[in-house]
């Protein structure tokens, strides 16, 4: 359950950036090969956010599919696993997308 620790990081980063203001939404980008389960993040978020500026905020997780480039033939293809080879047979692949673990945006509530 390293998702709990990761969620703590997310909340800490957003709190620091929000600087006391109320946060209504946090948008994440989580690659399908990042090693992090989106469901587990959502589960932990509610608990970790409680009694902070993020209490009750919506967690919007955008999952990013794997996309790889074959270093042998140059083809690019959707990589749904980390062990499927390229159509040419090579396993020497560069993962272009799918390892993201990022906070994209936060939405702040403002009372002016």
């Amino acid at each position, binding site marked *: 359950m*390293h998702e709990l620790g990761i969620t703590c990081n997310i909340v800490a*980063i957003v709190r620091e950036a929000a600087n006391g*203001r109320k946060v209504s939404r946090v948008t994440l980008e989580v690659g399908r*090969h*990042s090693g992090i389960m989106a469901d587990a993040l959502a589960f932990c978020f509610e608990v970790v956010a409680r009694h902070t500026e993020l209490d009750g905020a919506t967690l919007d997780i955008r999952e990013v599919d794997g996309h790889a480039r074959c270093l042998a033939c140059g083809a690019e293809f959707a990589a749904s696993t980390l062990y499927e080879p390229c159509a040419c047979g090579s396993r020497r692949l560069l993962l272009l997308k799918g390892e993201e*673990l990022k906070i994209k945006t936060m939405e*702040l509530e403002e009372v002016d």
Partner: protein
Amino acid sequence: MCGHCGCGKTTAASILNLQTGTHTALEHGAPDSIPHHHEHQHGHAGHHGHAETHAHRHEHQHEHSHQHIHGDTSHVGHELENSHPEHRHLDTSVVELEARILAKNDALATKNRAWFAQWDILALNLVSSPGAGKTTLLERTIRDLKAELKLFVVEGDQSTARDGQRIRAAGAPVVQVNTGTGCHLEADMVARVLRELNPSRNSIVMIENVGNLVCPALFDLGEWAKVVVLSVTEGEDKPLKYPHMFRAARLMVLNKIDLLPHVEFDTEHAASHARQVNPDIVILPISARTGQGLDAWYGWLRALSGGRASLIVDNRHRRA
């Protein structure tokens, strides 16, 4: 669990220097740890090697320089000026953060890596399931090589100093880290421990991670390579089940091969599975108990020690 944000205040993470007997509670982000408090919120995506530079250059400027408010742009300046008391309404604004969640750990790992390189120290991060034989491999390695190579050990376990004591008895300086409920070591723990351990120039620092094939794959410690230990009493399909770890490792040590006659384990299948997720992985079948195959492991260590590892280009620590 996590000390970064204070949510894990009850965590019992601590370090024990087995040379001096000094026991210290570990607090992430404590004043005496290497301070990198601001880099993560700016999160300049890309090469973490640059994170620190950006961090310090932009420190404390985020309120002004990093907000891009979408939608209703007419409210951009309100919160900063704070000068419209008669004009009260609830509004929302979207702030782009583009912050890599592990940026703080990665920046510290980069610092550790630079420190190891500066002292020509080969740092290896040993990972495996619990019970694969990491500590036994280290004990044997220390006994066989201590006259020839300078070996230092960081022992990571959730609790007890038992492994640290075994390493100390084998004859290497060791600092035990107890992570409490934590399931992996993080770069700040290693940075803290290095000050206790004080490894010498041209030495090898073996970092024995918490037995776990999942989380340690995500946390760069600043090591030159991850070494994954798989034992023949485990399933030969583990590389496919835990692809992140086997993909992140440069070397797979296949341990307990003395037990092969007694277990259903196909070495060729295991090797093939490991190469499916990592075609460049080096595979060394050994028995830490009988010593079979250890010459190849020792040869691997000798070839990389004394600063020679830094001559090999490493691209394993890039992150999307």
